[in-house]
């Protein structure tokens, strides 16, 4: 019954927020409340279309809504005509299992942020520009995660970085926000320029910009090595991997809280770019018989960087006294966990002596599943913590932990949400952080015990960090300056409730999520030939 929508769903998911972004200033001239309702409706509509698209790709054959649109687990959408041409000249959106996984993430986060900012941004000026930029950011993020064309990826990457930089500097009377936005735009631009350089090298070699066409005809010469390294390191800088992570806590910490939630989605979109380049475009070359040592070397270098990231993130987080900067450093450490899982999986490649096919061993497969699952869990948990930090700032106008105290007496619901976020981020049972971290601990222990020891130790240190925050901000005697503090407005509570419900659902039924959403994504990631056959 949804056939008509599903045929055009990949394009609608980008077009609706874009259209909403351009209509928002006009609607805002009529009335402020009407604009808020309009933006919430547009975001809800986008989430609905993304949910339909993901369901259609990930469900079993018998329960899909439109089974003939999805061939071999991939839905292709060609802009402008029926066929892509030979050679391929049109822009193609190719949505396979990994993309269906990432766009679920990209649809939940803006919905929570927009509902939250109804109450959070009530007294600020310039709100029409704020909502326009958030809708633009949503459109750019969804386009980045669905596209099958390398230059299109670069264009969406730049759209999201320009919109994010303008949103980080939203409060221009605060001098720290402006300098954080400047550092973000410098780092973003240099990363994007090197990505464009690598795309130009690949175009010059193979005369194609489409990811599947390049993957079909790629070799592993000197120029291809340069292109691979430039792409991976520039996208790693945008994803916040140490030692290039220093812009991340400042940018996350000085932006308004609802903006940080959407920027988390963008950072994970750049991480998805690394996966797409490493596993699919260069997949046949890195995971092949002749170049086995390349894949293993790349895996061990990524593991080294990941350990550095986890240590630096956790040690700096313990020392901070600013609420949001501390959560920013914890977010850096969590990205280190994801890179640890993927690097450890690449490092276990072996060649089957009987059949001669190379592959990833079974513990490496669990590591891949754990890393993928952790992307979803980490985005939800850290977003919930940032929304709580925003609620505390809204009530007390203080961002430093040295001047807070005793807030739990007046803000009961916010305290409960903070406890749920604390338990989820540090990986305590029974919430979702434990499920994904258990998979990472057990699989990396079989590869090398030191990796698992480092991972568990730093999880415990993360718990120590957030217990410090909980004591300093929420517990303690009632301070006289917070005498008249009331609970935050209902729309902010509903925004936090959306994220909490998803966290508790994934925590109670992890096998449901792993079997139906994560395993198809991991299978699609390893299967580069299916992606090539999608054109």
């Amino acid at each position: 019954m949804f056939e008509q929508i599903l045929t055009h769903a990949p394009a609608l998911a980008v077009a609706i927020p874009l259209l909403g972004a351009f209509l928002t200033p006009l609607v805002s001239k009529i009335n402020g409340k009407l604009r808020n309702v309009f933006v919430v409706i547009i975001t809800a509509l986008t989430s609905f279309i993304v949910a339909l698209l993901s369901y259609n790709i990930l469900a079993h054959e018998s329960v899909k809504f439109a089974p003939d649109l999805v061939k071999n687990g991939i839905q292709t959408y060609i802009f402008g005509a029926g066929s892509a041409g030979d050679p391929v000249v049109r822009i193609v959106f190719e949505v396979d299992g990994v993309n269906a996984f990432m766009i679920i993430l990209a649809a939940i986060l803006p919905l929570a942020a927009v509902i939250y900012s109804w109450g959070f941004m009530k007294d600020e000026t310039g709100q029409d520009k704020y909502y326009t930029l958030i809708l633009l950011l949503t459109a750019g993020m969804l386009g980045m995660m669905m596209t099958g064309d390398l230059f299109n990826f670069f264009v969406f990457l730049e759209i999201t970085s320009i919109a994010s930089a303008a949103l980080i500097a939203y409060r221009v009377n605060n001098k720290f926000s402006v300098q954080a936005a400047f550092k973000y735009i410098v780092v973003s631009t240099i990363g994007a320029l090197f990505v464009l350089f690598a795309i130009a090298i690949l175009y010059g070699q193979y005369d194609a910009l489409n990811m599947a066409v390049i993957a079909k005809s790629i070799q592993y010469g000197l120029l291809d090595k340069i292109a691979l390294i430039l792409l991976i390191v520039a996208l790693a800088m945008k994803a916040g991997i140490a030692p290039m992570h220093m812009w991340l806590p400042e940018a996350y910490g000085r932006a308004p809280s609802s903006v940080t939630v959407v920027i988390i989605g963008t950072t994970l979109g750049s991480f998805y770019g690394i996966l797409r380049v490493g596993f699919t475009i260069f997949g046949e070359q890195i995971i092949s018989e002749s170049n086995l040592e390349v894949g293993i070397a790349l895996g061990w270098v990524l593991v080294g960087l990941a350990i550095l990231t986890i240590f630096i993130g956790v040690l700096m987080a313990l020392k901070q006294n600013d609420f949001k900067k501390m959560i920013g450093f914890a977010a850096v450490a969590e990205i280190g966990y994801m890179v640890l899982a993927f690097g450890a999986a690449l490092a276990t490649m072996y060649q089957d002596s009987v059949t001669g096919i190379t592959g990833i061993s079974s513990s490496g497969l669990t590591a891949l599943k754990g890393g993928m699952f952790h992307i979803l869990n980490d985005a939800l948990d850290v977003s919930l913590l940032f929304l709580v930090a925003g609620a505390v700032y809204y009530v007390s106008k203080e961002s430093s932990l040295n001047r807070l105290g005793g807030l739990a007496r007046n803000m009961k619901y916010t305290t409960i949400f903070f406890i749920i976020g604390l338990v989820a981020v540090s990986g305590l049972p029974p919430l979702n952080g434990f499920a994904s971290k258990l998979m990472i601990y057990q699989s990396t222990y079989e590869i090398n015990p030191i990796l698992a020891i480092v991972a568990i130790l730093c999880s415990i240190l993360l718990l120590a960090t957030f217990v410090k925050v909980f004591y300093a901000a929420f517990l303690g005697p009632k301070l006289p300056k917070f005498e008249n503090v009331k609970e935050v407005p209902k729309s902010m509570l509903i925004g936090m409730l959306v994220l909490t419900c998803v966290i508790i659902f994934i925590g109670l039924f992890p096998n449901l999520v792993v079997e139906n959403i994560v395993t198809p994504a991991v299978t699609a990631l390893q299967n580069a030939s299916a992606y090539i056959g999608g054109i």
Partner: protein
Amino acid sequence: MMAFQIPYLAVAGLIIIGLYAVLFKRNLIKMIIGITLIESGVNLFLITLSFREGSTAPIYTSSPGGPMSLPVPQALTLTSIVIGVAVLALMLSLVIHIFKHYKTLDVRKIREEDN
């Protein structure tokens, strides 16, 4: 044969000079000029890829014969130039706000507070 390598050497030179300006200069405006140099180098690289020897511009419908340069990298370069202009405008307006707050343009003094 050496004449056809000069654009590639120019690309390498522009990118290295741009990276030097971003890494070692202390004025914010000089850092932005360095970013513009890197961007110009990458655009030059894209255009150089589209050149064929003895070719004409790919804008004719009924061409005077002979080979034509590739049109696709020229379209990519136009997109990249427009993105570069937008980013440059945003960076310069942020520098104006930074100067109003910090009263200096030294990159070592523009930092977070310590607490």
